[in-house]
Structures are given as structure tokens and as C-alpha cells.
């Protein structure tokens, strides 16, 4: 034992706590160490007192009730860990905790990612009818946007009834009225390629022969979209795509967002993109029920045209405006009514509702 360790035995001298070995070590060291001997001699007074049994009992009583020190309590409390069964149980619980923590750790980022995507969707305005699908939003948003929500999932509509057979194109030509009935020069003058090429196409509507016309309700764009996508394709040469444009506060026409409700005073245009070169005629049904030609013009394949080229459709009172978009590969020189009635297979009926 070192000198320091032997000095720590001093406390056992007075109470006679030392074992034989400890006592020998202490006394042998004291014989050669005057300081230790002096300390030992000073302990003699206490030793003399503690030799008396009654004095010991008095001190024990003064120490109060026995109380286990913290270390002993902690050691005994941890003593159950020394048992194999308890140790196994503790290990199992630890494994469960670790496993649970890992599971939470793995699932948490995914849940967080869903929240981020949801935020992106909320902030992202609903794609307008004319919003180009080719635009490249941020990748994270794009991934979500291309995951169509249930409301937007196109569901196949009921099979459309077999359209009646159309008179062939030569018939239209044969019934063409006088040139005055269709002011073609105006239509040609209205030829105006859209300056926002590529930004207006949202969907391609086909007009296969024979095909009944159907309405486009701006107030219910989703239903219209479903119906449009349910249409059978009739070949690229007969495809016509259109987008509704709404005049903004700055006077410019911009694609109307999906779900847009047209109000009294709004000005609306159609942006048309034909799938083939030919002629486009836009008809409007008057209050009397007859069709009148709004505009007609020659068009080229995959070009954008805004109709009408001057102003737009508007109403000062809540009303429905029925339009008829007719595509013909050849020029039509017939009256508007005759064109509407004879060209239903190559026409598209559009209803604008102003509320």
C-alpha cells in the first residue's frame, strides 16, 4: 500500500475497524513515518473513548436511524439487472425502443415530404385550361403535379351515341351560297397568329366525322375535360384544339384558369390551333335562334389563332352564348345557318355562360 493509502487507514484505528493486515500495514508504516505516527497518536484519544461500549451506543443513537447511502440504494436497485431474465427483458425493451426509434426516423421524412408537396400544390395555382403541359415547374412540384389527384383523374365517360352520317364535304361545297354570305376577306384579315405560341394549347379536340357537337361549359370545366378526352381520335388532320381566353385588367387576353366563372362584362376569346390546314368558321347563335358568322379564316396547321380577332364575346346580363366552331379543309361559301346545319360533323359547339 502506498503512503496515501495507509494514511486512509487512520480512520479505522480509533474504531478498531482495521483487519489484521490493515493494522500491520498501518503500524509498520507508523514506525518509520513520524508524521503518520503523530497522527496515529492523536487518534488514540478517540480510540480510548470508543473503547467504551456505552459511548459507542450513544454515538450510534446520535447518528439517527439507519439509512442506506445513495450508492448502496442505486447498486441494489440495479442489482436486478444482474439477473439473466431481467437482463434479457431489459435488452428486449431496448431493442424495441431502438427499432421504434428507427421506424419513426424512417417514416418521418416521408411524412414531411408529403406536407411539402401539399404546400406546393396549395401554392401552385390550378392549371388553367390553356396552361401548357410542357411548362417545366420545379421538379418536386412537377412530380406531384403529374400525379393527378382523384378529382382530375379522367374517367371514361359513357360511350357517346353513334353520330349520324354526315354529308360529305363535296355536299358543303355544292351548297355554298353567294360569296356575300361568308365575308371571307374579313376572316382573312383576322388571321392573327398568336404571339404566345405554345402557351395556349391545353387540349386537343377532335372533330371526327360523323360526330355530334357537345357543349363546353366554362362553369364546369372538369366535366368538359372528361368528355373531351373521351372522344375518339379522328386523325391529326381533323384535330382542332382551342383554349378560352379571358381579358384581364391590363387589356390582354390570357388563358382562363380551370374553374373560372365568367361574369357579366367579361370578354372572352377562343384560341384555336388546328391540326391541319384549312378554314375555321366561328358561328354564334343569335337570340332569334339563327346562326350568324362571327369570323372565318384560312388557317395553317399547328398555328394559333384568336377568335374573334377583334374584341371578344361578352354579355351585359347573365346569359349563355352559344358558339359553333366549324373546321373545313376547303373554303365554305354558304350561309351561316346552312353551314351550321350542314357541317355539324366538323363542328364543335361551345357554350359560354356569363353569370
Amino acid at each position: 500500500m502506498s503512503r496515501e493509502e495507509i494514511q486512509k487507514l487512520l480512520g479505522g484505528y480509533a474504531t478498531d475497524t482495521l483487519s489484521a493486515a490493515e493494522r500491520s500495514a498501518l503500524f509498520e508504516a507508523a514506525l518509520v513515518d513520524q508524521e503518520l505516527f503523530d497522527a496515529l497518536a492523536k487518534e488514540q484519544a478517540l480510540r480510548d473513548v470508543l473503547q467504551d461500549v456505552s459511548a459507542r451506543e450513544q454515538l450510534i443513537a446520535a447518528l439517527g436511524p439507519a439509512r442506506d447511502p445513495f450508492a448502496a440504494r442505486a447498486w441494489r436497485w440495479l442489482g436486478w439487472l444482474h439477473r439473466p431474465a431481467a437482463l434479457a427483458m431489459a435488452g428486449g425493451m431496448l431493442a424495441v425502443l431502438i427499432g421504434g426509434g428507427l421506424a419513426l426516423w424512417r417514416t418521418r421524412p416521408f411524412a414531411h415530404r408529403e406536407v411539402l408537396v401539399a404546400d406546393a400544390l396549395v401554392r401552385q395555382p390550378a392549371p388553367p385550361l390553356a396552361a401548357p403541359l410542357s411548362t417545366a415547374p420545379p421538379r418536386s412540384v412537377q412530380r406531384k403535379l403529374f400525379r393527378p389527384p382523384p378529382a382530375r383523374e379522367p374517367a371514361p365517360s359513357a360511350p357517346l351515341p353513334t353520330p349520324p352520317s354526315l354529308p360529305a364535304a363535296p355536299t358543303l361545297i355544292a351548297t355554298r351560297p353567294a360569296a356575300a354570305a361568308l365575308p371571307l376577306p374579313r376572316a382573312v384579315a383576322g388571321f392573327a397568329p398568336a404571339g404566345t405560341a405554345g402557351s395556349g394549347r391545353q387540349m386537343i379536340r377532335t372533330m371526327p366525322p360523323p360526330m355530334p357537337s357537345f357543349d363546353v361549359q366554362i362553369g364546369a370545366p372538369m366535366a368538359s375535360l372528361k368528355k373531351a378526352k373521351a372522344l375518339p381520335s379522328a386523325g391529326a388532320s381533323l384535330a382542332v384544339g382551342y383554349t378560352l381566353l379571358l381579358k384581364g385588367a391590363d387589356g390582354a387576353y390570357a388563358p382562363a384558369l380551370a374553374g373560372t366563372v365568367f361574369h357579366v362584362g367579361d370578354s372572352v376569346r377562343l384560341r384555336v390551333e388546328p391540326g391541319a390546314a384549312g378554314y375555321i368558321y366561328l358561328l354564334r347563335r343569335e337570340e332569334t335562334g339563327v346562326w350568324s358568322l362571327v369570323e372565318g379564316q384560312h388557317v395553317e396547321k399547328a398555328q394559333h389563332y384568336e377568335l374573334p380577332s377583334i374584341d371578344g364575346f361578352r354579355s351585359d346580363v347573365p346569359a349563355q352564348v352559344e358558339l359553333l366552331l366549324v373546321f373545313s379543309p376547303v373554303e365554305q361559301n354558304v350561309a351561316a345557318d346552312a353551314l351550321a346545319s350542314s357541317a355539324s360533323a366538323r363542328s364543335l359547339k361551345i357554350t359560354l355562360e356569363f353569370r
Partner: protein
Amino acid sequence: MEREQILLKLRERIVAFAASHIQGDIAEDVAQEVLILLHEKYHRVERLEELVPLALQIARFKIMSLRRKSQRHGEYTQVSVADIQLPDPEANPAELVERKLMLERLTQAVAQLGDRCRELLRLKLQGKNFGEIQKRMGAQSINTVYTWDYRCRQQLLDLMGGDWEAGKR
């Protein structure tokens, strides 16, 4: 170690210890008287573990007796070895009073110790050795118990004014 060697070393230590409390020449006398007593009355005691405590006890009584006598106006210049009775706590009324006072001080001091020290002292007073105390208190090693006891003893000594006996400092 032989008894003679033990006694020689004891003499050196006792002289030095007594010299720190009383005059040098008297310290020599005290050591000599302790050895004479060990030789004459305790000549059968040979083991170190018995000789050292016995020598310390005789020396302490010798020094205390000298102090008392010197306090009585120097009436006695030396203490007769024959006057020392071991062990006989009841024989000397002054010694009895000193022990009683010391016990009172001890009682007050131990009440101020912390939980660990009180428990350690209790086990010591109950006669447990350090090995048993280690198990009872859940110490990881016996050196830990040594350290605890050393600190507790120092704390108790401080509570008693730095000396077990009153009026020594």
C-alpha cells in the same frame, strides 16, 4: 520484526511525538517510561499490532498526566510509571470527565455529518471492518471505502475544531 526492533522504533517515534507537546528532555523521559512499562508489565506482548496501540495509549496517558501536574503549579516534575493503570478509565476522575466532554462533542459533531459519513461511522461503531462496509454500502472497491472514511474522518475532525480532545489547539 522482532520485539526489540519494534521497541527501538517506538522509542524514536514517541520521543519525537512527545517533544512536539512537551519539553524535549521530558519527552525523552516519557518515552523511557513507556518502554519500561512495556518491558515490565507487558513483556508478554510481542506482536506489532498489539505493541503499537499499547505504547500509544501509555504515552498519551503519560503526557496527559504531565500536563495536569504541570497545571498544578509544577508540583510534580515527572510522572511515576506506577501511577498509570491500563486499562482503568474509571480510576481517574479527570480522565473520566475529559472522556465525557469528548463524547458530548462527538455526539454533536456526528449529527452534522452527511448521510454517507453517518452510515459509514455507524457501521464502524457496530464493529464492521472495511470489507464488510464495502459490501453494505455497495462500494465498487475497498479503496473507495478508504477514501470515504478518510474524508469523513477529516470532516468530523473539522467539526470538532481540528482535534479530538478539547483545548488542544
